[in-house]
């Protein structure tokens, strides 16, 4: 059960795993996630479902190595198994035909963006993707996005690929140029914050998909809580998508740092255990 059938390195710190999960592959919709655990001592980690193959009964997970748990998952090889995979969790993205949809993905956020963007395209929208990464090496899923998107704009911080600059530069060019009916922003919290500030100026409805700390993923613990429009909401059951213009990003960024010290301690120990 939960066997890894394929592993692909997408960039230095980002790995794609195709995992056997027949029931979830049939049930999942764009925007949903799973909770996984690698071993008896492992954390429960939420991971967005980047793709699913109903016929083969697999789901695709994209993992960025940032600490112990993500590294443990990223180092699994074909033949290895995840101890637990549960889902699909969260509310699916509301997909409809709106006109032009702007899909904005930063870093590993391009992974959860991918199935959502494709679903909007399949629903008959014009789909423009703006993908941002620190450099060319870190850009993921460009080919996959290009396969269906009407236009793909690449932004890199160092100019090593596409245009040089932060992602909002590329987004603003599109907003200036043509009417956009919905923007979807997924990426680091800071990227979503500035994307939301920008689209607000252009009065473009925007949703952001949040990846907060979770434990159970079913509404039981409240670790994932965020303030949206002044109200506390749970990302796991009320989200993961919210109106990007109402999210309190600063609070969310602070809460993401809750275990900074512990994470470092754990990761140092993990690295030592490898050497």
């Amino acid at each position, binding site marked *: 059960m939960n066997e890894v059938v394929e592993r692909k390195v997408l960039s230095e710190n980002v790995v794609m795993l195709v995992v056997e999960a027949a029931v979830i592959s049939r049930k999942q919709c764009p925007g949903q996630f799973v909770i996984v655990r690698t071993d008896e001592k492992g954390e429960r980690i939420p991971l967005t479902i980047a793709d699913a193959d109903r016929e083969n009964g697999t789901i695709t997970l994209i993992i960025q190595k940032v600490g112990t748990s993500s590294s443990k998952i990223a180092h699994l090889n074909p033949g290895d198994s995840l101890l637990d995979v549960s*889902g699909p969790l969260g509310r699916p993205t509301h997909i409809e035909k709106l006109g032009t949809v702007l899909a904005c993905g930063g870093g590993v956020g391009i992974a959860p963006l991918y199935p959502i963007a494709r679903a909007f395209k399949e629903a008959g929208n014009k789909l423009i993707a703006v993908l941002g990464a620190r450099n060319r090496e870190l850009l993921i899923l460009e080919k996959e996005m290009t396969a269906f998107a009407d236009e793909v704009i690449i932004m890199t911080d160092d100019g090593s690929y596409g245009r040089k600059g932060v992602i909002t530069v590329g987004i603003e060019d599109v907003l200036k140029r043509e009417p956009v009916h919905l923007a979807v922003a997924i990426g680091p919290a800071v990227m979503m914050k500035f994307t939301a500030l920008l689209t607000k100026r252009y009065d473009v409805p925007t949703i952001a998909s949040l990846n907060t700390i979770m434990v159970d993923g079913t509404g039981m613990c409240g670790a994932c809580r965020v303030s949206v429009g002044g109200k506390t909401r749970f990302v796991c059951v009320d989200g993961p998508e919210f109106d990007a213009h109402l999210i309190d990003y600063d609070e969310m960024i602070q809460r993401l740092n809750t275990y900074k010290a512990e994470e470092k301690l754990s990761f140092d120990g993990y690295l030592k255990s490898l050497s």
Partner: protein
Amino acid sequence: MPVDIHDLHADRNQEWRNELRSRLSAKERSALPRVKMPELDARERSTGFREVNTGLSEELAMQEAKRCLDCAAPTCISGCPVNINIPGFIKLIEKGDFSAAARKLKETNALPAVCGRVCPQEIQCEANCVYQKMKKPPVAIGYLERFASDCERLAGAVIVPGIPEKVPIRVAAVGSGPASLTFAGQMAKWGFQVTVFEALHELAGVLSYGIPEFRLPKSIVRSEIAYLEALGVVFERNVIVGKTVTIEEMREQGFQGFFIGSGAGLPKFMNIPGENSIGIYSSNEYLTRVNLMKAYQFPDYDTPIVRGKRVAVIGGGNTAMDSVRTAVRLGAERAMIVYRRSEQEMPARIEEVHHAKEEGVEFLTLTNPIEYIADSEGRVRQMKVQKMGLGAADDSGRRRPVVIPGSEYLIDVDTVVVGVGTDPNPLIPRAIQGIEVSKWGTIVVNEETMQSAVPDIFAGGDIVRGGATVILAMGDGKKAAVAMRDHLLGKFPGN
């Protein structure tokens, strides 16, 4: 559920029991002092997660069993939501046949080792003991229940009763907490094919994620589960009913009856300023990190927890006591209960309050938080509270707390655990068509049968009651099993 009085009398009139009863007069029995539960020293226990109550020795148990008068019309049973034959198992302990006592318990209770530890006996069976009328301390029924089931487990002599005959009907329990486990055990004993679906990776619901090791060792929960597996119950983990699989799909797979025991899994917050600061947990999160994810063994285990030095736990129930005593064990220098009413109104068991005090927990009663103050990183540093007075009685019969104006002051804290209750988890009610849901989010059922508005769906425990106890949930599971059996067998005559 009615107790069969003829069975009770037949049990009581066995020769050995008549003989045992005649050995001591009621006067001699009632003159014996109530046993005290041996426990670890407060200082020794508060640095680790070892079980606090260490359990009765054989001598103490047999001595306590002698106190039971073996009443002809036992009133204690009426206080037990699962109607354990209480004198029946206690007299077997007095006789020295501990294994038979454990089997007697299991005739009506699938989880005696759990109930013997976490039931509020003082308001149930023991509150109805005949000694209460005599103004004497009741028989320590809970301690004896624990003793008998522990003996059986430790002897490795768990005997699984024979299943009379298989009933070719599949039924499902949603959630694997005490309500579902009781339901499952009962249905399995009647020969039904039972599958229990659990959303988490670990079974037993609140018994696993909620109640700490020092009050209910997880090895005991696991052995109770193993007993159910031996009865033929099948467990499926990581299945979120309503998400991974729907009730309709389960019907297509051949399930003919459903018991929803999904619990009250949605934590309540107070919605006061600063409540989303770092270091402020719901009791569910705090306890889940420690109990389910073993964060107290971080970094050996990967899940971390903030180990606060000044910890305030908001609330006065058992969950609040579990949280504050956990904080002590995680190294808190100052661990506080902050409760808006007085100690008298606290819903927690007296034993838990007593243990917490022994372990150095401070009780700030008639005190209510109104704001949290964080540092520049967003970590909680202070808590603004106000003092409360007590006004007239409210709907619950308890005196209503009223604010004393101008009484605000600040308390330094680095961790806060909000344990002011839970709401029913909306995932399941949301996912089932046709079910009736109250304004509190609970599933509406017929109280006699636990049947919902959808005839093949029954429900019990906190998803019906809001927030209650393990034993009440178990009583619901049992009631639902009886009603579902009658419903299904009536529906399928000849099976």
